Protein backbone atom coordinates (compact mmCIF):
# COMPACT_ATOMS: atom_id res chain seq x y z
CA UNK A 1 0.00 0.00 0.00
CA UNK A 2 1.53 3.32 -1.10
CA UNK A 3 0.97 6.40 1.07
CA UNK A 4 -0.89 7.93 -1.87
CA UNK A 5 -3.56 5.26 -1.82
CA UNK A 6 -3.42 5.09 1.95
CA UNK A 7 -4.42 8.74 2.23
CA UNK A 8 -6.90 8.38 -0.62
CA UNK A 9 -8.78 5.71 1.29
CA UNK A 10 -8.52 7.79 4.42
CA UNK A 11 -10.11 10.61 2.49
CA UNK A 12 -12.96 8.38 1.32
CA UNK A 13 -13.60 7.36 4.94
CA UNK A 14 -13.53 11.01 6.04
CA UNK A 15 -16.04 11.79 3.30
CA UNK A 16 -18.29 9.07 4.66
CA UNK A 17 -18.07 10.56 8.17
CA UNK A 18 -18.96 13.98 6.83
CA UNK A 19 -21.88 12.57 4.83
CA UNK A 20 -23.18 10.94 7.99
CA UNK A 21 -22.91 14.31 9.71
CA UNK A 22 -25.08 15.95 7.07
CA UNK A 23 -27.62 13.13 7.06
CA UNK A 24 -27.87 12.65 10.81
CA UNK A 25 -28.38 16.23 11.99
CA UNK A 26 -30.83 19.02 11.30
CA UNK A 27 -28.93 21.72 13.17
CA UNK A 28 -27.45 23.88 10.43
CA UNK A 29 -24.08 24.35 12.16
CA UNK A 30 -23.75 20.59 12.57
CA UNK A 31 -24.52 20.12 8.91
CA UNK A 32 -21.88 22.68 8.05
CA UNK A 33 -19.41 20.74 10.18
CA UNK A 34 -20.39 17.64 8.24
CA UNK A 35 -19.96 19.43 4.93
CA UNK A 36 -16.51 20.64 5.99
CA UNK A 37 -15.50 17.09 6.89
CA UNK A 38 -16.84 15.75 3.62
CA UNK A 39 -15.05 18.50 1.75
CA UNK A 40 -11.76 17.76 3.46
CA UNK A 41 -12.30 14.10 2.55
CA UNK A 42 -12.74 14.94 -1.12
CA UNK A 43 -9.69 17.22 -1.11
CA UNK A 44 -7.67 14.52 0.60
CA UNK A 45 -8.58 12.00 -2.10
CA UNK A 46 -7.62 14.40 -4.86
CA UNK A 47 -4.29 15.50 -3.35
CA UNK A 48 -3.37 11.99 -2.25
CA UNK A 49 -3.85 10.69 -5.79
CA UNK A 50 -1.57 13.49 -7.02
CA UNK A 51 1.20 11.95 -4.91
CA UNK A 52 1.45 9.00 -7.29
CA UNK A 53 4.20 10.81 -9.14
CA UNK A 54 7.38 12.41 -7.83
CA UNK A 55 7.38 15.37 -7.62
CA UNK A 56 3.61 15.41 -7.05
CA UNK A 57 1.37 16.77 -9.80
CA UNK A 58 0.79 20.46 -8.96
CA UNK A 59 -2.53 20.70 -10.85
CA UNK A 60 -4.61 18.91 -8.20
CA UNK A 61 -2.94 21.10 -5.58
CA UNK A 62 -4.17 24.16 -7.40
CA UNK A 63 -7.64 22.65 -7.72
CA UNK A 64 -7.78 21.94 -4.01
CA UNK A 65 -6.58 25.43 -3.14
CA UNK A 66 -9.46 26.77 -5.20
CA UNK A 67 -11.74 24.25 -3.54
CA UNK A 68 -10.64 25.36 -0.08
CA UNK A 69 -11.48 28.97 -0.85
CA UNK A 70 -14.86 27.97 -2.23
CA UNK A 71 -15.43 25.88 0.88
CA UNK A 72 -14.55 28.79 3.14
CA UNK A 73 -17.01 31.00 1.27
CA UNK A 74 -19.79 28.44 1.55
CA UNK A 75 -19.08 27.90 5.25
CA UNK A 76 -19.16 31.63 5.95
CA UNK A 77 -22.47 32.02 4.13
CA UNK A 78 -23.99 28.98 5.82
CA UNK A 79 -22.97 30.17 9.29
CA UNK A 80 -24.39 33.63 8.64
CA UNK A 81 -27.64 31.94 7.63
CA UNK A 82 -27.54 29.84 10.79
CA UNK A 83 -27.20 32.93 12.97
CA UNK A 84 -30.09 34.65 11.22
CA UNK A 85 -32.27 31.54 11.30
CA UNK A 86 -31.65 31.26 15.02
CA UNK A 87 -32.63 34.88 15.51
CA UNK A 88 -35.84 34.49 13.46
CA UNK A 89 -36.95 31.06 14.61
CA UNK A 90 -35.10 30.50 17.87
CA UNK A 91 -33.37 27.45 16.42
CA UNK A 92 -30.85 27.10 13.63
CA UNK A 93 -32.75 24.13 12.24
CA UNK A 94 -33.01 23.31 8.56
CA UNK A 95 -36.74 22.88 7.90
CA UNK A 96 -37.72 19.48 6.51
CA UNK A 97 -41.28 20.00 5.38
CA UNK A 98 -42.08 21.11 1.81
CA UNK A 99 -44.01 24.11 0.64
CA UNK A 100 -44.12 27.78 1.46
Amino acid at each position, binding site marked *: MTSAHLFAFSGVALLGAGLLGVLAHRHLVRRVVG*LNLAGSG*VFLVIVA*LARRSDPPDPVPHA*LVLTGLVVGL*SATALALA*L*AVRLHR*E*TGAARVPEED*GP
Partner: protein
Amino acid sequence: MSGAAWAIGAVLVPLAGATAALVGGARAGRWVGLATAGASAACAGGLASAVLAGGTVRHRVGGWGAPLGIELRADGLSALMLVMVAAVGIAVTVSAAAYFGGAGGGEEQGRRRLLFWPLWLFLWAALDALFLAADVFNVYVTLELVGLSAVGLVALAGDRAALGAAARYLVLALLGSLAYLLGVGLLYAGLGTLDAGGIRAALGPGLLATAAGALVLGGLALKAALFPLHGWLPPAHAGAPAPVSAALSALVVKAAFYLLVRFTREILPGAALPRAEVLLGALGAAGIVWGSLQALRQDRLKGVVAYSTVAQLGYLFLFFPLARDAGAATALSGAGLFALAHALAKAALFLASGAILKALPSDRLDGLAGLGSRMPLTAAAVAVASVSILALPPSGGFAGKWLLLSTAFATGRWGWAVPMLLGGVLAAGYSFRVLERAIASTPGDAPPVRAPLAMELSALALALAAFAVGLVPWAPLRLLGAGGALAGVAP
Protein backbone atom coordinates in the same frame (compact mmCIF):
# COMPACT_ATOMS: atom_id res chain seq x y z
CA MET B 1 -15.90 41.24 -33.24
CA SER B 2 -15.03 37.55 -33.35
CA GLY B 3 -17.24 34.90 -31.78
CA ALA B 4 -14.66 34.33 -29.06
CA ALA B 5 -14.68 38.01 -28.18
CA TRP B 6 -18.46 37.92 -27.75
CA ALA B 7 -18.13 34.83 -25.55
CA ILE B 8 -15.52 36.48 -23.34
CA GLY B 9 -17.69 39.57 -23.13
CA ALA B 10 -20.67 37.48 -22.06
CA VAL B 11 -18.70 36.54 -18.93
CA LEU B 12 -16.60 39.63 -18.22
CA VAL B 13 -19.32 42.24 -18.77
CA PRO B 14 -21.69 41.01 -16.06
CA LEU B 15 -18.70 40.42 -13.75
CA ALA B 16 -17.64 44.02 -14.26
CA GLY B 17 -21.22 45.14 -13.74
CA ALA B 18 -21.43 43.23 -10.49
CA THR B 19 -18.21 44.82 -9.24
CA ALA B 20 -19.40 48.27 -10.23
CA ALA B 21 -22.74 47.71 -8.52
CA LEU B 22 -20.95 46.57 -5.35
CA VAL B 23 -18.74 49.64 -5.24
CA GLY B 24 -21.41 52.04 -6.49
CA GLY B 25 -23.83 51.02 -3.78
CA ALA B 26 -27.59 51.21 -3.55
CA ARG B 27 -28.00 54.46 -5.43
CA ALA B 28 -26.05 53.47 -8.54
CA GLY B 29 -27.08 49.80 -8.55
CA ARG B 30 -30.22 50.14 -10.64
CA TRP B 31 -28.53 52.04 -13.47
CA VAL B 32 -25.47 49.80 -13.43
CA GLY B 33 -27.84 46.84 -13.61
CA LEU B 34 -29.78 48.15 -16.60
CA ALA B 35 -26.63 49.09 -18.50
CA THR B 36 -24.98 45.75 -17.75
CA ALA B 37 -28.07 43.82 -18.78
CA GLY B 38 -28.10 45.55 -22.14
CA ALA B 39 -24.39 44.98 -22.77
CA SER B 40 -24.47 41.33 -21.64
CA ALA B 41 -27.49 40.62 -23.82
CA ALA B 42 -25.69 42.20 -26.75
CA CYS B 43 -22.74 39.84 -26.15
CA ALA B 44 -25.11 36.84 -26.09
CA GLY B 45 -26.71 38.03 -29.31
CA GLY B 46 -23.35 38.57 -30.97
CA LEU B 47 -22.22 35.11 -29.92
CA ALA B 48 -25.44 33.55 -31.22
CA SER B 49 -25.06 35.17 -34.63
CA ALA B 50 -21.40 34.11 -34.73
CA VAL B 51 -22.40 30.51 -33.98
CA LEU B 52 -25.17 30.66 -36.60
CA ALA B 53 -22.69 31.93 -39.13
CA GLY B 54 -19.59 29.87 -38.36
CA GLY B 55 -20.63 27.00 -36.13
CA THR B 56 -19.01 26.18 -32.79
CA VAL B 57 -16.88 28.94 -31.25
CA ARG B 58 -13.84 27.99 -29.16
CA HIS B 59 -11.36 30.00 -27.11
CA ARG B 60 -8.19 28.88 -25.32
CA VAL B 61 -7.99 30.94 -22.16
CA GLY B 62 -4.43 32.13 -21.58
CA GLY B 63 -3.56 30.74 -24.98
CA TRP B 64 -2.50 27.43 -23.40
CA GLY B 65 -5.23 25.16 -24.62
CA ALA B 66 -6.29 21.84 -23.13
CA PRO B 67 -5.20 19.90 -21.19
CA LEU B 68 -2.92 22.43 -19.48
CA GLY B 69 -5.23 25.40 -19.83
CA ILE B 70 -8.98 26.02 -19.82
CA GLU B 71 -11.06 26.27 -22.97
CA LEU B 72 -14.36 28.00 -23.60
CA ARG B 73 -16.76 26.46 -26.09
CA ALA B 74 -20.01 27.76 -27.52
CA ASP B 75 -21.95 25.40 -29.78
CA GLY B 76 -25.60 25.69 -30.72
CA LEU B 77 -26.84 24.47 -27.36
CA SER B 78 -24.61 26.83 -25.37
CA ALA B 79 -25.60 29.74 -27.58
CA LEU B 80 -29.29 28.97 -27.14
CA MET B 81 -28.84 28.86 -23.36
CA LEU B 82 -27.00 32.19 -23.40
CA VAL B 83 -29.77 33.76 -25.43
CA MET B 84 -32.27 32.35 -22.94
CA VAL B 85 -30.32 33.90 -20.05
CA ALA B 86 -30.18 37.21 -21.90
CA ALA B 87 -33.89 37.33 -22.72
CA VAL B 88 -35.00 36.43 -19.21
CA GLY B 89 -32.21 38.52 -17.72
CA ILE B 90 -33.28 41.76 -19.38
CA ALA B 91 -36.88 41.34 -18.27
CA VAL B 92 -35.84 40.43 -14.72
CA THR B 93 -33.53 43.45 -14.60
CA VAL B 94 -36.20 45.87 -15.79
CA SER B 95 -38.74 44.41 -13.40
CA ALA B 96 -36.30 44.41 -10.48
CA ALA B 97 -35.36 48.04 -11.14
CA ALA B 98 -38.97 48.86 -10.31
CA TYR B 99 -39.38 46.18 -7.63
CA PHE B 100 -36.36 47.23 -5.55
CA GLY B 101 -36.46 50.80 -6.82
CA GLY B 102 -37.78 53.85 -5.03
CA ALA B 103 -36.28 55.44 -1.95
CA GLY B 104 -37.16 54.75 1.68
CA GLY B 105 -38.32 51.39 2.91
CA GLY B 106 -35.97 51.58 5.86
CA GLU B 107 -32.75 49.70 6.51
CA GLU B 108 -34.09 46.36 5.25
CA GLN B 109 -35.08 47.83 1.89
CA GLY B 110 -31.79 49.71 1.69
CA ARG B 111 -29.93 46.45 2.24
CA ARG B 112 -31.92 44.81 -0.58
CA ARG B 113 -31.23 47.73 -2.91
CA LEU B 114 -27.55 47.46 -2.09
CA LEU B 115 -27.15 43.70 -2.35
CA PHE B 116 -29.57 42.63 -5.09
CA TRP B 117 -27.64 44.10 -8.01
CA PRO B 118 -24.18 42.61 -7.36
CA LEU B 119 -25.72 39.26 -6.44
CA TRP B 120 -27.93 39.19 -9.54
CA LEU B 121 -25.18 40.28 -11.92
CA PHE B 122 -22.79 37.71 -10.45
CA LEU B 123 -25.50 35.11 -11.04
CA TRP B 124 -25.85 36.24 -14.64
CA ALA B 125 -22.08 36.00 -15.17
CA ALA B 126 -21.97 32.61 -13.49
CA LEU B 127 -24.67 31.22 -15.78
CA ASP B 128 -22.94 32.54 -18.90
CA ALA B 129 -19.63 31.09 -17.71
CA LEU B 130 -21.27 27.75 -16.97
CA PHE B 131 -22.85 27.45 -20.40
CA LEU B 132 -19.51 28.33 -22.00
CA ALA B 133 -17.28 26.08 -19.90
CA ALA B 134 -15.56 23.19 -21.65
CA ASP B 135 -13.44 22.26 -18.62
CA VAL B 136 -15.10 20.10 -15.97
CA PHE B 137 -13.35 21.76 -13.04
CA ASN B 138 -14.15 25.19 -14.37
CA VAL B 139 -17.73 23.95 -14.41
CA TYR B 140 -17.36 23.20 -10.67
CA VAL B 141 -16.34 26.78 -9.95
CA THR B 142 -19.21 28.19 -12.02
CA LEU B 143 -21.63 25.85 -10.25
CA GLU B 144 -20.53 27.25 -6.90
CA LEU B 145 -20.84 30.79 -8.23
CA VAL B 146 -24.39 30.02 -9.32
CA GLY B 147 -25.23 28.30 -6.04
CA LEU B 148 -23.89 30.95 -3.66
CA SER B 149 -25.34 33.89 -5.57
CA ALA B 150 -28.71 32.11 -5.73
CA VAL B 151 -28.67 31.44 -1.98
CA GLY B 152 -27.78 35.05 -1.29
CA LEU B 153 -30.64 36.23 -3.48
CA VAL B 154 -33.14 33.94 -1.77
CA ALA B 155 -31.97 35.14 1.64
CA LEU B 156 -32.71 38.72 0.57
CA ALA B 157 -36.40 38.06 1.22
CA GLY B 158 -35.46 37.85 4.88
CA ASP B 159 -38.56 36.04 6.21
CA ARG B 160 -38.52 32.72 8.00
CA ALA B 161 -39.70 30.66 5.03
CA ALA B 162 -37.13 32.16 2.71
CA LEU B 163 -34.27 31.78 5.19
CA GLY B 164 -35.13 28.16 5.92
CA ALA B 165 -35.40 27.51 2.21
CA ALA B 166 -32.07 29.23 1.59
CA ALA B 167 -30.39 27.12 4.27
CA ARG B 168 -31.82 23.94 2.79
CA TYR B 169 -30.91 24.96 -0.71
CA LEU B 170 -27.33 25.76 0.38
CA VAL B 171 -26.77 22.45 2.16
CA LEU B 172 -28.09 20.41 -0.77
CA ALA B 173 -26.27 22.51 -3.34
CA LEU B 174 -22.98 22.05 -1.47
CA LEU B 175 -23.56 18.32 -1.14
CA GLY B 176 -24.26 18.20 -4.85
CA SER B 177 -21.13 20.09 -5.81
CA LEU B 178 -18.97 17.96 -3.49
CA ALA B 179 -20.22 14.83 -5.24
CA TYR B 180 -19.53 16.50 -8.56
CA LEU B 181 -16.06 17.61 -7.46
CA LEU B 182 -15.14 14.12 -6.28
CA GLY B 183 -16.29 12.72 -9.61
CA VAL B 184 -14.13 15.24 -11.43
CA GLY B 185 -11.20 14.45 -9.14
CA LEU B 186 -11.49 10.75 -9.95
CA LEU B 187 -11.69 11.49 -13.66
CA TYR B 188 -8.50 13.54 -13.47
CA ALA B 189 -6.79 10.92 -11.36
CA GLY B 190 -7.59 8.35 -14.01
CA LEU B 191 -7.16 10.33 -17.23
CA GLY B 192 -4.92 13.31 -16.41
CA THR B 193 -7.21 15.82 -18.10
CA LEU B 194 -10.09 18.09 -17.10
CA ASP B 195 -11.09 19.03 -20.63
CA ALA B 196 -14.52 17.73 -21.60
CA GLY B 197 -13.35 16.71 -25.04
CA GLY B 198 -10.24 15.06 -23.63
CA ILE B 199 -12.29 13.04 -21.16
CA ARG B 200 -14.73 12.02 -23.88
CA ALA B 201 -11.81 10.79 -25.95
CA ALA B 202 -9.96 8.97 -23.17
CA LEU B 203 -12.73 7.55 -20.97
CA GLY B 204 -13.87 4.04 -21.79
CA PRO B 205 -16.56 2.08 -19.99
CA GLY B 206 -15.35 0.69 -16.71
CA LEU B 207 -15.34 1.11 -12.95
CA LEU B 208 -13.87 4.61 -13.18
CA ALA B 209 -16.46 5.80 -15.68
CA THR B 210 -19.28 4.28 -13.63
CA ALA B 211 -18.18 5.64 -10.25
CA ALA B 212 -17.24 9.09 -11.52
CA GLY B 213 -20.36 9.19 -13.68
CA ALA B 214 -22.62 8.28 -10.79
CA LEU B 215 -21.06 10.95 -8.58
CA VAL B 216 -21.34 13.64 -11.25
CA LEU B 217 -24.87 12.78 -12.34
CA GLY B 218 -26.05 12.37 -8.74
CA GLY B 219 -24.63 15.72 -7.72
CA LEU B 220 -26.17 17.46 -10.70
CA ALA B 221 -29.55 15.76 -10.26
CA LEU B 222 -29.58 17.15 -6.72
CA LYS B 223 -29.00 20.65 -8.08
CA ALA B 224 -31.58 20.16 -10.83
CA ALA B 225 -34.27 19.43 -8.22
CA LEU B 226 -35.01 16.05 -9.76
CA PHE B 227 -37.81 14.26 -7.92
CA PRO B 228 -37.49 13.17 -5.11
CA LEU B 229 -34.57 15.57 -4.49
CA HIS B 230 -36.83 18.53 -5.30
CA GLY B 231 -37.84 19.39 -1.75
CA TRP B 232 -35.71 22.52 -1.51
CA LEU B 233 -37.02 24.12 -4.68
CA PRO B 234 -40.63 25.13 -4.01
CA PRO B 235 -40.03 26.95 -0.73
CA ALA B 236 -36.94 28.65 -2.14
CA HIS B 237 -38.62 29.76 -5.36
CA ALA B 238 -41.90 30.69 -3.69
CA GLY B 239 -40.19 32.51 -0.81
CA ALA B 240 -37.65 34.61 -2.72
CA PRO B 241 -38.43 38.14 -3.94
CA ALA B 242 -40.39 37.83 -7.19
CA PRO B 243 -37.65 38.88 -9.64
CA VAL B 244 -35.29 36.46 -7.89
CA SER B 245 -37.84 33.65 -8.15
CA ALA B 246 -38.07 34.38 -11.86
CA ALA B 247 -34.32 34.06 -12.31
CA LEU B 248 -34.06 30.89 -10.20
CA SER B 249 -37.04 29.08 -11.68
CA ALA B 250 -36.30 30.05 -15.26
CA LEU B 251 -32.51 29.84 -15.40
CA VAL B 252 -30.73 28.29 -12.42
CA VAL B 253 -32.43 24.89 -12.58
CA LYS B 254 -31.70 24.77 -16.31
CA ALA B 255 -27.98 25.03 -15.60
CA ALA B 256 -27.84 21.67 -13.83
CA PHE B 257 -30.06 20.10 -16.49
CA TYR B 258 -27.78 21.44 -19.22
CA LEU B 259 -24.77 19.83 -17.54
CA LEU B 260 -26.64 16.54 -17.21
CA VAL B 261 -27.24 16.64 -20.95
CA ARG B 262 -23.57 17.36 -21.63
CA PHE B 263 -22.36 14.54 -19.39
CA THR B 264 -24.84 11.86 -20.45
CA ARG B 265 -24.79 12.62 -24.16
CA GLU B 266 -21.25 13.88 -24.65
CA ILE B 267 -18.71 13.20 -21.94
CA LEU B 268 -19.51 9.86 -20.33
CA PRO B 269 -19.35 6.77 -22.54
CA GLY B 270 -22.81 5.31 -23.19
CA ALA B 271 -22.01 2.03 -21.52
CA ALA B 272 -20.82 3.65 -18.28
CA LEU B 273 -24.26 3.85 -16.66
CA PRO B 274 -26.59 1.65 -18.71
CA ARG B 275 -29.79 2.36 -16.83
CA ALA B 276 -29.08 5.95 -15.82
CA GLU B 277 -31.16 7.46 -18.64
CA VAL B 278 -34.19 5.34 -17.80
CA LEU B 279 -33.85 6.16 -14.11
CA LEU B 280 -33.64 9.89 -14.82
CA GLY B 281 -36.67 9.61 -17.08
CA ALA B 282 -38.72 7.67 -14.54
CA LEU B 283 -37.94 10.19 -11.81
CA GLY B 284 -38.83 12.96 -14.23
CA ALA B 285 -42.18 11.33 -14.90
CA ALA B 286 -42.81 11.04 -11.17
CA GLY B 287 -41.87 14.70 -10.84
CA ILE B 288 -44.43 15.69 -13.47
CA VAL B 289 -47.25 14.02 -11.55
CA TRP B 290 -46.13 14.95 -8.04
CA GLY B 291 -45.31 18.56 -8.88
CA SER B 292 -48.63 19.07 -10.63
CA LEU B 293 -50.63 17.53 -7.78
CA GLN B 294 -48.83 19.75 -5.27
CA ALA B 295 -49.41 22.79 -7.46
CA LEU B 296 -53.13 22.01 -7.35
CA ARG B 297 -53.02 22.23 -3.54
CA GLN B 298 -51.30 25.62 -3.27
CA ASP B 299 -53.33 28.65 -2.22
CA ARG B 300 -50.79 31.28 -3.25
CA LEU B 301 -49.90 32.15 -6.84
CA LYS B 302 -46.16 31.87 -6.22
CA GLY B 303 -46.65 28.46 -4.63
CA VAL B 304 -48.53 27.23 -7.69
CA VAL B 305 -45.86 28.57 -10.04
CA ALA B 306 -43.01 27.10 -7.97
CA TYR B 307 -44.48 23.58 -7.89
CA SER B 308 -45.27 23.89 -11.58
CA THR B 309 -41.50 24.20 -12.06
CA VAL B 310 -40.98 20.83 -10.39
CA ALA B 311 -43.48 19.35 -12.85
CA GLN B 312 -42.08 21.11 -15.90
CA LEU B 313 -38.55 19.98 -15.08
CA GLY B 314 -39.95 16.46 -15.21
CA TYR B 315 -40.67 16.92 -18.92
CA LEU B 316 -37.06 17.91 -19.49
CA PHE B 317 -35.83 14.75 -17.79
CA LEU B 318 -37.84 12.64 -20.23
CA PHE B 319 -35.15 13.76 -22.68
CA PHE B 320 -32.71 11.19 -21.32
CA PRO B 321 -34.63 7.99 -22.07
CA LEU B 322 -35.96 9.42 -25.34
CA ALA B 323 -32.58 10.60 -26.58
CA ARG B 324 -31.05 7.14 -26.77
CA ASP B 325 -29.87 6.11 -30.23
CA ALA B 326 -32.41 7.07 -32.91
CA GLY B 327 -34.22 9.69 -30.87
CA ALA B 328 -31.23 11.88 -30.04
CA ALA B 329 -31.74 14.69 -32.54
CA THR B 330 -35.50 15.25 -32.15
CA ALA B 331 -35.38 14.74 -28.40
CA LEU B 332 -32.68 17.38 -28.12
CA SER B 333 -34.66 19.81 -30.26
CA GLY B 334 -37.69 19.15 -28.08
CA ALA B 335 -35.82 19.57 -24.80
CA GLY B 336 -34.11 22.72 -26.06
CA LEU B 337 -37.35 24.35 -27.15
CA PHE B 338 -39.15 23.22 -23.99
CA ALA B 339 -36.38 24.61 -21.77
CA LEU B 340 -36.44 27.93 -23.62
CA ALA B 341 -40.22 28.24 -23.58
CA HIS B 342 -40.43 27.23 -19.94
CA ALA B 343 -37.77 29.77 -18.98
CA LEU B 344 -39.67 32.59 -20.68
CA ALA B 345 -43.13 31.57 -19.47
CA LYS B 346 -42.07 30.77 -15.92
CA ALA B 347 -40.18 34.03 -15.55
CA ALA B 348 -43.25 35.82 -16.89
CA LEU B 349 -45.44 34.19 -14.25
CA PHE B 350 -43.11 35.10 -11.39
CA LEU B 351 -42.69 38.67 -12.60
CA ALA B 352 -46.46 38.90 -12.88
CA SER B 353 -46.83 37.70 -9.29
CA GLY B 354 -44.29 40.36 -8.37
CA ALA B 355 -46.49 43.00 -9.96
CA ILE B 356 -49.50 41.53 -8.15
CA LEU B 357 -47.66 41.67 -4.82
CA LYS B 358 -46.87 45.34 -5.45
CA ALA B 359 -50.50 46.17 -6.19
CA LEU B 360 -52.42 43.85 -3.89
CA PRO B 361 -51.89 42.88 -0.24
CA SER B 362 -51.02 39.27 -1.11
CA ASP B 363 -50.90 36.74 -3.91
CA ARG B 364 -53.49 34.47 -2.33
CA LEU B 365 -55.60 32.98 -5.13
CA ASP B 366 -58.88 33.89 -3.50
CA GLY B 367 -57.71 37.51 -3.44
CA LEU B 368 -57.19 37.61 -7.18
CA ALA B 369 -60.87 37.69 -8.17
CA GLY B 370 -61.51 40.05 -11.06
CA LEU B 371 -57.80 40.44 -11.79
CA GLY B 372 -58.69 40.59 -15.48
CA SER B 373 -60.30 43.99 -15.04
CA ARG B 374 -58.23 45.15 -12.07
CA MET B 375 -54.78 44.50 -13.64
CA PRO B 376 -55.46 43.73 -17.31
CA LEU B 377 -51.81 43.72 -18.41
CA THR B 378 -50.71 41.39 -15.65
CA ALA B 379 -53.72 39.14 -16.14
CA ALA B 380 -52.91 38.96 -19.85
CA ALA B 381 -49.32 38.04 -19.02
CA VAL B 382 -50.48 35.24 -16.70
CA ALA B 383 -52.94 33.97 -19.31
CA VAL B 384 -50.51 33.92 -22.23
CA ALA B 385 -47.71 32.42 -20.13
CA SER B 386 -50.08 29.74 -18.85
CA VAL B 387 -50.91 28.70 -22.41
CA SER B 388 -47.23 27.93 -22.93
CA ILE B 389 -46.96 26.14 -19.57
CA LEU B 390 -50.02 24.11 -20.62
CA ALA B 391 -48.16 23.32 -23.85
CA LEU B 392 -51.25 24.18 -25.89
CA PRO B 393 -50.63 25.06 -29.54
CA PRO B 394 -49.29 27.22 -30.98
CA SER B 395 -47.20 28.17 -27.92
CA GLY B 396 -43.51 27.50 -27.34
CA GLY B 397 -44.34 24.87 -24.76
CA PHE B 398 -46.35 22.99 -27.37
CA ALA B 399 -43.52 22.98 -29.88
CA GLY B 400 -41.18 21.40 -27.33
CA LYS B 401 -43.76 18.94 -26.06
CA TRP B 402 -44.70 17.97 -29.61
CA LEU B 403 -41.10 17.13 -30.50
CA LEU B 404 -40.66 15.08 -27.32
CA LEU B 405 -43.96 13.31 -27.97
CA SER B 406 -43.19 12.48 -31.56
CA THR B 407 -39.79 11.18 -30.50
CA ALA B 408 -41.56 8.88 -28.07
CA PHE B 409 -43.86 7.52 -30.78
CA ALA B 410 -41.25 7.47 -33.53
CA THR B 411 -38.84 5.40 -31.41
CA GLY B 412 -41.60 3.13 -30.16
CA ARG B 413 -41.08 4.31 -26.56
CA TRP B 414 -44.66 5.49 -26.35
CA GLY B 415 -44.79 4.66 -22.65
CA TRP B 416 -43.01 7.98 -22.05
CA ALA B 417 -45.85 9.77 -23.84
CA VAL B 418 -48.27 8.89 -21.04
CA PRO B 419 -46.77 11.13 -18.33
CA MET B 420 -46.46 13.95 -20.86
CA LEU B 421 -50.15 13.78 -21.78
CA LEU B 422 -51.25 13.30 -18.18
CA GLY B 423 -49.05 16.20 -17.14
CA GLY B 424 -50.76 18.39 -19.71
CA VAL B 425 -54.17 17.69 -18.21
CA LEU B 426 -52.93 18.25 -14.65
CA ALA B 427 -51.24 21.49 -15.71
CA ALA B 428 -54.60 22.62 -17.05
CA GLY B 429 -55.97 21.92 -13.61
CA TYR B 430 -53.65 24.24 -11.72
CA SER B 431 -53.35 26.88 -14.45
CA PHE B 432 -57.07 27.42 -14.90
CA ARG B 433 -57.51 27.50 -11.12
CA VAL B 434 -55.54 30.73 -11.41
CA LEU B 435 -57.07 31.97 -14.66
CA GLU B 436 -60.67 31.57 -13.55
CA ARG B 437 -59.88 33.87 -10.62
CA ALA B 438 -59.01 36.51 -13.20
CA ILE B 439 -62.49 36.28 -14.74
CA ALA B 440 -64.37 35.57 -11.52
CA SER B 441 -66.82 38.32 -10.62
CA THR B 442 -65.80 40.25 -7.52
CA PRO B 443 -68.06 40.44 -4.46
CA GLY B 444 -68.00 44.18 -4.00
CA ASP B 445 -66.75 46.61 -6.62
CA ALA B 446 -63.00 46.04 -7.01
CA PRO B 447 -61.39 49.13 -8.53
CA PRO B 448 -58.44 48.77 -10.91
CA VAL B 449 -55.08 48.76 -9.08
CA ARG B 450 -51.69 49.92 -10.25
CA ALA B 451 -48.33 48.20 -10.21
CA PRO B 452 -45.17 49.78 -11.68
CA LEU B 453 -45.74 49.66 -15.44
CA ALA B 454 -42.20 48.30 -15.97
CA MET B 455 -43.09 45.20 -13.96
CA GLU B 456 -46.35 44.53 -15.78
CA LEU B 457 -44.82 45.10 -19.20
CA SER B 458 -41.72 42.98 -18.58
CA ALA B 459 -43.96 40.09 -17.53
CA LEU B 460 -46.19 40.52 -20.58
CA ALA B 461 -43.20 40.77 -22.92
CA LEU B 462 -41.77 37.49 -21.62
CA ALA B 463 -45.15 35.77 -21.92
CA LEU B 464 -45.55 36.90 -25.51
CA ALA B 465 -42.00 35.76 -26.24
CA ALA B 466 -42.79 32.30 -24.84
CA PHE B 467 -45.82 32.17 -27.12
CA ALA B 468 -43.87 33.47 -30.12
CA VAL B 469 -41.33 30.66 -29.77
CA GLY B 470 -44.20 28.37 -30.74
CA LEU B 471 -45.00 30.39 -33.86
CA VAL B 472 -41.45 30.31 -35.22
CA PRO B 473 -39.91 27.28 -33.51
CA TRP B 474 -37.57 26.81 -36.44
CA ALA B 475 -35.66 29.95 -35.41
CA PRO B 476 -34.31 28.65 -32.07
CA LEU B 477 -33.94 25.22 -33.66
CA ARG B 478 -31.65 26.64 -36.31
CA LEU B 479 -29.43 28.08 -33.59
CA LEU B 480 -29.58 24.82 -31.65
CA GLY B 481 -28.49 22.90 -34.73
CA ALA B 482 -25.68 25.26 -35.65
CA GLY B 483 -22.33 23.49 -35.56
CA GLY B 484 -23.86 20.28 -34.23
CA ALA B 485 -25.69 21.00 -31.00
CA LEU B 486 -23.99 18.03 -29.34
CA ALA B 487 -20.99 16.06 -30.46
CA GLY B 488 -22.44 13.38 -32.69
CA VAL B 489 -25.96 14.81 -32.53
CA ALA B 490 -27.17 17.24 -35.19
CA PRO B 491 -30.85 18.19 -35.06
